[in-house]
C-alpha cells in the first residue's frame, strides 16, 4: 500500500510544478526583456504531463515530461513612445493570457486537493489495517 502513497505524491509534485509554471507566466505577463536586458518578450510556458513516475521507476503515477514554450503569436500594443516600438509604433507583449493562467492554476489546485484526499484515504486504510493486529 505504500506504492499508493508514491503515486499520489508524484501527482502532488506534478500539479505543484504546473502551479509554479502558471505563477511564472502571470509574473512575467508584462516582461519585455530577457535576463540580459535585451528585447525579447516572455513567452508562455506550459507543462506536458506523462503517465508513470521515473522517480520511483513505477508505471503508476505521473510526471512532468517537459516544459514547453508557447510559440503562439505575441500581443501587439500601440505604444509609440516605447523604446521597443516597431516602425508602426507597436510593442509586442508576452502571449500570456491571465484568464487561461487563472483557470489553469485553479484546476491545478483542485487536482492537488483530489490527490490530498486520496492520500488521506490511503493513510486511513493503513491505520485500519494496523488495527487488525492490535
Amino acid at each position: 500500500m505504500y506504492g499508493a502513497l508514491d503515486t499520489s505524491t508524484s501527482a502532488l509534485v506534478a500539479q505543484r510544478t504546473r502551479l509554479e509554471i502558471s505563477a511564472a507566466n502571470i509574473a512575467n505577463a508584462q516582461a519585455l526583456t530577457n535576463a540580459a536586458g535585451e528585447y525579447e518578450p516572455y513567452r508562455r510556458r506550459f507543462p506536458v504531463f506523462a503517465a508513470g513516475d521515473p522517480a520511483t521507476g513505477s508505471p503508476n503515477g505521473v510526471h512532468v515530461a517537459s516544459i514547453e514554450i508557447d510559440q503562439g503569436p505575441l500581443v501587439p500594443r500601440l505604444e509609440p513612445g516605447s523604446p521597443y516600438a516597431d516602425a508602426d509604433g507597436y510593442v509586442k507583449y508576452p502571449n500570456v493570457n491571465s484568464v487561461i493562467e487563472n483557470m489553469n492554476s485553479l484546476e491545478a489546485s483542485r487536482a492537488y486537493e483530489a490527490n490530498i484526499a486520496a492520500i488521506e484515504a490511503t493513510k486511513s486504510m493503513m491505520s485500519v489495517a494496523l488495527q487488525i493486529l492490535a
Partner: protein
Amino acid sequence: MIDDIANADTIPVLERLVQFAGQRHRLIVNNIANFDTPGYRPVDVSVESFRNQLGEAIDDRRGRRPDGKLNPIDSEQVEFLDDGMVLHADPIGENILFHDGNDRDLERTMQDLVENFMTFRTAAELLRSRMDIINSAIAERI
C-alpha cells in the same frame, strides 16, 4: 490446528475482501494522479465480477465438510495467489473523451475512492473483531 483457526468461518472471505480493496485502491489512486495526463485512460476492475467470484467460492466451501480453505477461481481481471491477489485492470471508457484524449471523471473516481475505502474499513473491522474472539479464546486457555 492453526490452519483450522485461520480458515474458520468468515476469516478467509474477509481476508480476500481486504486484499481486493487494497489492490483496487492503488488503481483508483493512479487514476486520480493522472487526471491531467493527456491520452490517459482510467483503469478499473469489475467489483461485481469479484463479488460473484467470492460468492461462488463461499458456496463451494459450504458444500464441503469440513469447510477447509476458500478456493476462489481466477477471472481475467482477478488472479488469486496464496498470499494475495493480482488485479489486471482494463480501461473503463465510460465518460466523454476530453480534448487531450483523457477520459477522466473526477466525481465518479472520488466516489469510487470513498466506496472502496468504506469496503476496506468494514472488512478490516470485521476481521479485527474475529481476531479479538480468537485472542480471548486463547486467553481463556492459558
